[in-house]
Structures are given as C-alpha cells and as structure tokens.
C-alpha cells in the first residue's frame, strides 16, 4: 500500500488509510453489490444448479409452516408475592459496580427479580448518570455461564460445611502464629466495610501482610505525589472550571475512575461557552504517543513518544518560569508549535489552567505537573487534593514484588487472593505462576476459575456486584452501598463472607451476613441520627450524602527539589513498546464478555482480538501492511502480533494492548488475541525501549469494522467556528417536500426526533453497548464480523482529517436516521418496514421475509440482517439478561434502531393513563441515557421548548446525506473548531 497523493482536496476526511491511499481492494469491496457475501458467493455455480437449489428451496418453504400444535406454556406465579413487585413492570434499584476498585454508580432495572439493564445513576454527585461500556456490559458477566460455580479444593468440589470448617481452621492456625507467613493480596479496596474487616483480621495477626495489586494501577501518580508533597495526596480535576488543559500523555476522558466526570464537565463547558459566547472555549492540548479519547478532542495534539512527552513537560515548565533544567536540544517543529500554543493558553487561563500527567509518565513528570499547577494558581480551582480514597494506598508494583519475593523464599504459609489475577496480568519477571505454588496453602476468591485460581489450592467463586451486599467509594470519595438484585446464581460468596469465615468467628458471630457487616460500618458513620432513615435514603439514592472526601490544602511545593530533575536525552530511532489496557477489555478481566470483545475499539475499530499498533511511517519503512504478523523481541522475551497501522501514532512507538490471549478466561475468549504480558516487566511496566521487530511470513485477517458501512466522503462530519457558526450546506435541491405530506400536521401528536452533538461525543462506545443490552442485540463472532455482519444498531464512525502522521479525529455515532422519506420503506415487497404516525421508521420482524432490499436501499447503511441464527445458541443463564419488552429476532430477519420504541410505548401508555402528555426528558433512549457527555438528545418536536427542538434550531444542526431528500429525523450538531474557520467536508 503506497500513498497516492493525487487526491485534489486540500484536507481530505477519511475513514481508513486504504481510503486515503485509494486502495484498489477497498474500491472493489465498496463497489460490490453484496460485500457481505464477498467470500461466500459460489462463483462456479451453473445456471442449472442455481435453478435446482432455488426450486428445492421453494418446494420446502411450505414445510416450514407445518408443525404440530404447541404444548401449552406454563405460567408460574409466586407463592408469596414479594413486596413492591408488580408482574410485568420493572423495578429499579440504585447500586454501584466496581471498576479498578472505585464505584461506578448505577441504577439497575429488574424484571421479576432478574436484572436486565444497567443505567447510570443521574443523581450521583460524581458521574451524574454517565456510563462506560464496561458498566453496560457488566450485566452480561453476571449471567456468564463460564463463571466458576463451586468451591473447590485441589480441583475437587467441597461441600459448604467442610469449606466453612476448613476456613475456620486456617484462620485459627494463622492467629496462633500471630499472622506470620500470612499474606493477603487484594485489588484496590475502597470499601469501608472490607477495609474494616481486613484491618480487624490483621490486628489479630500482626505479622501478616496486606498486598495490593491492580494492573492499571496509579503507582507513578503516587510516587509523583510523594516526591512533591512528601505524602500521598490524591488530585481531583475539575474540568468544568478549566479553560486550558494540557495533557501529558494523560487520557482524562478514557482512563481512570473519574473519566466520566471529566467527559461531562468538558462537554457541558464547551457547549455553554459556545452558546453564550461570553468566554473563550475551553481547550485541551495533548501530547501523546498513541491516540486517546482525550487526544481526539484536543484543540491541538502532537504525536510524541513517551520520552519526548517528558522533554515537552520540562520545556513547558521552563516556559512558565519554573526553574528546571530545560531540554538542551530544540524540540521538533510540531512539538514546538504545541508548546507555544499550550503555554500561551495556560498563561492566559492562569488559575483556570490545568496540567495533567498520565499514569505512564514517570513520577518526575507528575511532580512537574503539580508544580506547574501550583504556579498557575490552579490549586483549589481546577485541581483539589484529598487524602487517598483507597483504603490501603500502597505502591502496587512494590507491594507485589515483596509478595513475590516472600513466595519465592518459601516464607508464605497462607496466601489469600481476593479477586486479583496476578498470574495473567502481573509482571512476567516476578514469575508468579511458579511462586504461588510455593505457598503452603493458597486461597483464591474470584468470578472465574482463571489463571491464578488454577494454581491455588482453594478456589471460592465470588459474587458479582449485583449479587452481594457491600459498599464502595467513587473517585471523589462518595460512598455507595452495593445492594443485591438477585441471589447468587451459583453459590458464590462475597469477599466479606469469605473473610468472616477466615477470621474464625466465635459461634454467635458465624451467622453475621454481609448485610450486617455493611450496616455495622455505617451505623458508626451515620452517627447520632436515625439510622433507619439514613440507611433507606442511602439505598434509595445510590450514594451516601456528604460522604465526599474533604479537600485538604496541599503543603507548599519545594521548588528547589525540581532543579534536580533533568529531562531525558532524546533516544534516537530506537523503537519503544507501549503497554496499554485494551479499550474494551481493560487488563483482561472483561475478556470473556462477548459484547466487549465485539465492540469496535475507538480508533482501530478492531473487534475480537488485538494488534500491534504502528505508525504509517513505520509501516512504510518496514514495508508491512495491516494483518501482517511481526515478531517482537525484547531481551529474552518474544511475542508475535499482527500489525495495524494507526494514523496519529508516534513514529517510533508500537502500542500493545494487554488483556488478550488469556489462557483461562473462558469460552468466549478462547483463542482470541495475542498475549503481550510475557514482555511486560515490573521495571518497564508502561513502556519498553529498545525492541526489535521482524516480519514473519504469516498474515492474519483483522476483524476491523472501519471500512464497513461506508458512506464515503459526502460532508458527513462538519465543523463550525465562532466566525462561521452555520453547518448548513445548500445542495441546490428543493427545500420543501416534493412528495405528499404524511399525517404529521396533527399538533397533538408526538413527533420523535434525535440530535447527536459531535462536539460532545468522545467516542467512548457506551451507547453501542447500552443499545445492545436494551435491544437484545446478538453478537456474531469474529468470522461473521470479517464478513461485515456485525449487528450493532448504533455504530460509531471514526473519521480522520489531514495528514496521517497526526490527523484530527472525529467520532460520529450513526443510528437509524428515521427518515421521513425513507428509501427503505418504498422497496419492501411485504411492507415489513413502514412509517408510523409519530415519525418512526418501524421494522416489523414478523412480516420480514429477508429480501434485504431495504438494507440495499439505505444510504446510511444502518440496517442489520440476521444472516444466521445468532440468538439460538445463548445459554439459559444468558437468556435471563434479555429485555422482555423487545422481541428476540430469528434468522432471516432484518432489524435496526427503533428509537427504543418499547420505551416510547411505555411512556406513552403511562402518560395516557395519567391523562397527560409525555413530558420532555421523561423518556430517554438507551443510547441517550448511557452517554456521559449528554451528546444525544431525543424528544418530541411538537412539544414547545423541548430540548430536541432547541437543538434542531441551532445553527450547528445538519443532517447527513440531506441532498437525497430523505429528511432524516436524526440530525447532528457540528463540531466546534476553535482555531479554524470551520469547514464542511
């Protein structure tokens, strides 16, 4: 693949390098009438054979209708009706999930005791209703049939009584030895109850040790804080007040427990600034080696290797009059430009400026960032500090190393692992697999019989958050009570219960449940007041009021210490590996979740597997193309990976995603992806320099969706600016309707419509998974994705603009447009897709005969066809997740976004029964509810002053492919470009 620079347009917008370079193969695929049959179409079939097959098909069609009368179905009522349950109406419970130990507040929907859908908790002071794809997909993990089901000892089943007495004996033994040789390994613990339990457990065993290990840890931030303040302080960023944010390889919008809040603050601040025009737009400046969600939203971004980012940080400190040793060498031109713009913006913003260092940056850069923020006066303004939220804030890398040493030395008598999976996700050089076997007794508590569990003597299945009583703190310290929505599906125990048995309780305390333990914790915290009210309010709200961590005044920074820091020397052309958590699977804990495996990742649009991300520059240099396998060698270790060329990747950096190629994740993850963990060592946890790449002869087809459903270059993504605020393009077609009017004059009717704000959208994918959960959308697997048959009703198109070494990036979610003049409707021979009175483009599954004419005629390519029976193979437990208000589709049926018509109908019926209209904002589609940036607005065009109507009146409003006179009900709000004149491409 060679760049062909004959494209006449100055700044082309493109979806993939193939498109930019005008690759012949892409053109071939696009021109095909049925790309989804590309590899299936039997070219050799003769006319005679064709007629034979068709004839047989026709003859047998009638047989499909013949079946004996069905057995009558059972209806099984309750014996005792539970309180508040109205069969047929869902209940909603506020609770929280854990992500890296921190609370992700949720409201879970439950149908007759069966949780089916997770929404964000709009009342929560931190997240305000946003969700992540992982939160949405967590419901599938609850029902995962591969979750471990039984307590095992040495691979054999153990009955509960034997288990309890064994745990008590172990606890008794460790107490007698004063805890010598007892090591507990947990993930990040923010649960006050669990922390209280562990502390009391350890107080009786003073010599025992508590280790913490989380692969996506924040060690560098901790070390940076120690270096700066002499103690561990936790920074919290307030983006809503920021006018200029400089991200030094920090992914504010995609990583970390407060990302949801950052996304929301940034989106709302930008929108408000643009609409009111009374202040400059807040801007982000990003220097990063590999594209992140933050980089995509940045006003200016530069692709720079990790060492270059460090040098940039020193140079920035120099510009802002901090006495540091500035880098001697000149910066490359693009970095210099970024530096100039960023330092000017920071100086102008003053206390409303903010500098953030990413976790993969060394502690020195974190220290610099703190000093810069202090210099700007940002402390107390855009950044505040609290005591650490973690209950046991230690250096994770160090903590795990100490454990590994003790294990290797044979000093460990009892090893208790709560949740962590260090064998699969820990540093390879600690050789934990061998070490764990040296422990006298090892106990593993987790959701899956994973790599670590398989090496331990005991395995105890853990409860999912939706099955247990617990508590947890969010990134800002706000505590939530975790309440169960369903009894443990497979005899699992929560960590609280396991610890209770291990602490060898006296007889009268053996019945203490996790609920009792949590209530005890909060009975102390609730203090004087009425505990019953406190408890009920906290459960109802989903968080405990006033439990946010108080801000503390950080000590003054000793700037003299900064002088001792020195920027790294530029490392010439040596290649650097970057280890990054997979955007969907994280450290691999979500590997067995099919929704997340099939979720196209934000930039590469890869599904089902990973790849080594290389820059277009490196691809050209090595002469390799996407899918070619490379051998990566570093020290003694070597791994193989297919490559993927990623625009915007720093030239000499190769990004590897962790969490793939796991050995014991479950059936979904089997043979998916290539592990990178063998190269990951404690010392080079985030980046590894000086590696060599060699091309092997193998080629692996990558299941990326970036070229699926192409609409091609037709002014799809538009941007505006303060000077040119209108996104409208005149196509020279009639503005008015050429066709007779539909029955839309009735002012009392609802007319549904949607807008999607491209300025707010950060491409996080939460809407895609939310839609999948709400609408019973099946996953299809890697092979079917390769054929272009993924079923997502909403896809996020990612566009690049400009030079491929550092292009601008745009995200565009594309659901069904619900065209008023829908091209799909007029071609359906059986009227299976029709127009409703409220302007919905309806899809009636039971009418559909599968001609796929509609899909062919849809210019937006939003229709999805069940080529095979994708839903039939679901395990019984997975069927419990299904939304009972949405039909499960069978093979041979077309489907697409319905604007969540089940929610519309429910809202309409509720309103009708109350004798009123549906209120604006009462009804939210699944995608809208999931969005942390409030990018999606949905509502009625006939309601005076409705949010969607206001959005449609914005000059930023435009429809895609409007010139076809489809009159889409879904429209977009253009991106706001701060430093350009606005463009319509």
């Amino acid at each position, binding site marked *: 693949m060679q760049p062909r620079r004959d494209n006449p347009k100055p700044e082309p917008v493109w979806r993939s390098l193939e498109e930019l370079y005008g690759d012949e193969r892409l053109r071939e695929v696009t021109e095909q009438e049925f790309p989804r049959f590309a590899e299936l179409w039997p070219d050799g079939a003769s006319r005679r054979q064709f007629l034979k097959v068709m004839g047989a098909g026709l003859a047998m069609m009638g047989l499909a209708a013949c079946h004996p009368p069905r057995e009558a179905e059972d209806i099984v009522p309750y014996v005792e009706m539970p309180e508040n349950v109205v*069969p*047929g109406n869902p209940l909603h419970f506020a609770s929280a999930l854990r992500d890296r130990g921190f609370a992700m507040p949720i409201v879970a929907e439950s149908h007759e005791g069966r949780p089916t859908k997770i929404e964000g908790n709009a009342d929560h002071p931190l997240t305000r209703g946003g969700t992540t794809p992982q939160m949405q997909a967590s419901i599938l993990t609850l029902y995962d049939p591969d979750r471990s089901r039984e307590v095992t000892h040495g691979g054999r089943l153990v009955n509960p009584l034997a288990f309890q007495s064994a745990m008590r004996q172990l606890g008794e033994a460790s107490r007698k030895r004063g805890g010598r040789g007892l090591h507990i390994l947990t993930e990040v613990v923010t649960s006050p109850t669990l922390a209280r339990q562990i502390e009391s457990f350890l107080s009786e065993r003073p010599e025992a040790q508590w280790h913490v290990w989380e692969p996506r840890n924040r060690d560098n931030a901790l070390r940076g804080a120690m270096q700066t303040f002499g103690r561990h302080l936790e920074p919290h960023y307030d983006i809503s007040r920021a006018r200029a944010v400089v991200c030094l390889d920090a992914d504010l919008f995609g990583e970390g427990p407060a990302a949801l809040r950052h996304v929301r603050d940034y989106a709302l601040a930008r929108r408000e600034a643009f609409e009111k025009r009374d202040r400059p737009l807040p801007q982000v400046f990003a220097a990063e080696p590999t594209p992140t969600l933050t980089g995509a939203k940045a006003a200016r971004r530069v692709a720079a290797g990790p060492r270059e980012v460090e040098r940039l940080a020193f140079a920035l400190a120099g510009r802002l009059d901090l006495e540091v040793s500035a880098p001697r060498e000149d910066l490359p031109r693009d970095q210099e430009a970024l530096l100039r713009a960023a330092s000017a913006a920071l100086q102008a913003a003053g206390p409303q400026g903010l500098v953030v260092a990413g976790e993969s940056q060394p502690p020195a850069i974190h220290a610099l960032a703190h000093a810069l923020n202090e210099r700007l006066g940002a402390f107390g303004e855009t950044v505040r500090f609290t005591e650490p939220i973690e209950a046991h804030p230690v250096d994770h890398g160090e903590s795990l190393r100490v454990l590994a040493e003790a294990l290797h030395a044979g000093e460990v008598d009892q090893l208790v692992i709560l949740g962590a999976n260090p064998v699969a996700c820990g540093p390879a050089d600690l050789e934990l697999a061998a070490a764990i076997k040296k422990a006298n007794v090892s106990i593993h508590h987790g959701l899956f019989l994973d790599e670590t569990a398989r090496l331990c003597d005991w395995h105890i299945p853990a409860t999912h958050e939706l099955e247990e009583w617990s508590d947890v703190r969010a990134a800002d310290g706000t505590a939530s009570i975790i309440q169960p929505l369903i009894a443990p599906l497979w005899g699992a125990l929560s960590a609280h219960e396991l610890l209770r048995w291990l602490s060898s309780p006296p007889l009268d305390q053996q019945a203490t449940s996790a609920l009792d333990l949590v209530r005890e914790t909060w009975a102390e915290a609730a203090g004087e007041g009425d505990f019953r009210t406190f408890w009920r309010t906290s459960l109802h709200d989903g968080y405990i009021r006033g439990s946010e961590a108080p801000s503390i005044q950080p000590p003054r920074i000793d700037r003299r210490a900064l002088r001792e820091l020195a920027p790294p020397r530029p490392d010439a052309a040596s290649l650097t590996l970057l280890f990054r958590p997979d955007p969907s699977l994280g450290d691999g804990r979500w590997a067995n979740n099919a929704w997340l495996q099939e979720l196209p990742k934000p930039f590469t649009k890869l599904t089902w597997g990973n790849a080594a991300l290389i820059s277009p520059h490196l691809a050209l240099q090595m002469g390799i193309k996407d899918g070619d396998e490379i051998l990566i060698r570093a020290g003694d270790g070597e791994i193989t990976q297919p490559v993927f060329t990623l625009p915007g990747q720093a030239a000499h950096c190769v990004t590897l995603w962790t969490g793939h190629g796991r050995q014991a994740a479950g059936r979904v993850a089997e043979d998916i992806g290539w592990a990178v963990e063998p190269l990951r060592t404690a010392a080079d946890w985030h980046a590894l320099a000086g590696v060599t790449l060699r091309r092997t002869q193998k080629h692996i087809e990558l299941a990326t969706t970036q070229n699926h459903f192409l609409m091609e270059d037709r002014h799809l993504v538009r941007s505006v600016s303060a000077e040119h605020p209108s996104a409208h393009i005149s196509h020279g077609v009639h503005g008015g309707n050429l066709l007779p009017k539909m029955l839309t004059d009735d002012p009392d009717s609802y007319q549904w419509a949607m807008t999607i704000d491209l300025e707010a959208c950060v491409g996080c994918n939460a809407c895609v998974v939310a839609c999948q959960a709400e609408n019973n959308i099946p996953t299809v697997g890697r092979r079917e994705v390769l054929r272009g048959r993924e079923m997502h009703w909403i896809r996020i198109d990612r566009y690049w603009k400009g030079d491929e070494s550092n292009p601008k990036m745009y995200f565009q979610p594309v659901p069904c447009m619900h065209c008023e003049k829908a091209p799909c409707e007029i071609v359906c021979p059986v009227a299976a897709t029709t127009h409703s*009175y*409220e302007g919905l483009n*309806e899809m009636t599954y039971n009418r559909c005969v599968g001609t796929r004419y509609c899909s062919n005629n849809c210019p937006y390519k939003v229709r999805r066809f069940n080529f095979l029976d994708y839903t039939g193979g679901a395990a019984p437990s997975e069927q419990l997740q299904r939304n009972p*208000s*949405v039909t499960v589709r069978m093979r041979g049926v077309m489907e697409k976004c319905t604007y969540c018509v089940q929610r519309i109908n429910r809202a309409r019926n509720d309103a009708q*029964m109350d*004798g009123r209209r549906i209120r604006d904002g009462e009804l939210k589609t699944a995608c809208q509810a999931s969005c942390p940036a409030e990018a999606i607005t949905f509502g009625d065009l006939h309601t005076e002053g409705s949010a969607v109507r206001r959005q449609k009146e914005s000059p930023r409003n435009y429809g895609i492919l409007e010139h076809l006179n489809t009159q889409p009900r879904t429209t977009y709000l253009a991106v706001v470009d701060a430093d350009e004149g606005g463009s319509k491409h």
Partner: protein
Amino acid sequence: MSQIFHPKHDGMLRAVFLAVPVGLAGVAALLYFWNQPDHIREVGKAHVQPVPFSHQHHVSGLGIDCRYCHTSVEESPFAGIPPTHTCMSCHSQIWADSEMLEPVRASYFENRPIAWKRVHDLPDFVQFKHNVHVNAGVSCIECHGEVSEMPLVWQEERLSMGWCLDCHREPGGRVGPERYVVPKNLTVRLEEGPDAERETWKSIGDYPVATVAAEFENYELINRIHSDDAESTDGRLFQLTNCSICHY
C-alpha cells in the same frame, strides 16, 4: 400393431381429469382449515389445569372481582396470576381439607409455585398490554369471553391479528362506559352514577373495590379518540394500526 388405448381408458381419463382438481381443492381446503387460528390456537378447548379452578364458581357464584386475583391488570402489561398466598387467604379457612386443593396447600407449605397452563398465548413478537386496554375501557369479556361462565377456562376468541385489527380500526363500540372491566352480569352501568355503583359493589361482596369512577376520568378523551363518528382519517385512530403499536 395393436391400439395402445382401449376405449375403457376414456372413462379412466375422465375420472383423472375430475379427480385431480377435486383432490387439489380438497388438499387446499384441508390446509386452509387446518391453519385457521381457531384450530391452531385451540379456540374453545378447555385446558386441564393442575388444580381444577372454576372461574364460574368463584366469579358468578361468589362474586369475586377479576382484580381480586389478577391484581396488576390495571397497572401492568401483565394481568397477573395470583400467588398461592391469594388462594390460601380463603382456603386456609374454607375447604381447608379438600383433596382437590391438595396441590395448593403443597405449593404453599413447600414454597413451590403452581405451574398453571397458559390458555391465552400470543406469539412472542406481539407486545400486548393489559393495562392500556383496561384503562381505555375495554372490558375483560371483550377478549376473554364470559369467563364467569367457564368452569375451566378456554380461549373464546381467535386472538389473531385480523381479530385485533378489527377493534384497532374501529374501536367505537367496544370501549366505553357500557362495557366494563368486570364480567357483564356484574357490570353496573356508569349512567347510574358512581354512588349507585359502589352500593351495588357492596352488595356483591364486602371487600373494598377501587373506586370505579376514578377509572373513568379519561373517558372523554378516549371517547373522542375512539368514537364511531370520528373521521376515519383521524390520525390517532390511524396510529392504533401502526405496526410498532404491537410489534417491537
């Protein structure tokens, strides 16, 4: 060379000419009737239930309101099948030793639900909502027939799509005050006024029934939408036949 066809073959040929169309018509008729919703859905066939519960006895005989057991019919898409507790609230006192009720007692004391056989089974791609229909004033009888006269429940109507559409196209006569959400023979006409109704209810059974009048607050609106004299082009009437009203 002798003749291949004998004169008697003429008759056989004529018989074949007659038999082929008659046979084809017969097969077609068989298939047609076999596939009628009445046949497929076993209209009129009483289902054998684990307990031979008689609606006739409980409703006509004792005057129990439908909603005493089907509690969620007004507030949920699903009318609700009573929990065993509901049965036992009476049958722990009366007929407490009856052999016929043994499964009910077993269910209650062993905490094991009774698996009733579903009589009215719509296809899974249809989303029917009891609450909307009942609140619009569609009487139970309209779809379920006179359950109060059924010893064991059978399906009275075809419940085919055409049958649903009959009403969705022209709901005029089927909703409104004159038809009511309780069996016909117990129905009190609304014209008599809410007070009179309550009196009648009291005489039927002494348990409190939700005030009848409150349910009819929306009546004017519903009548406006659904009345016969509304133009057939009335948008909202048209909306009632939109696919996504039932299929999604």
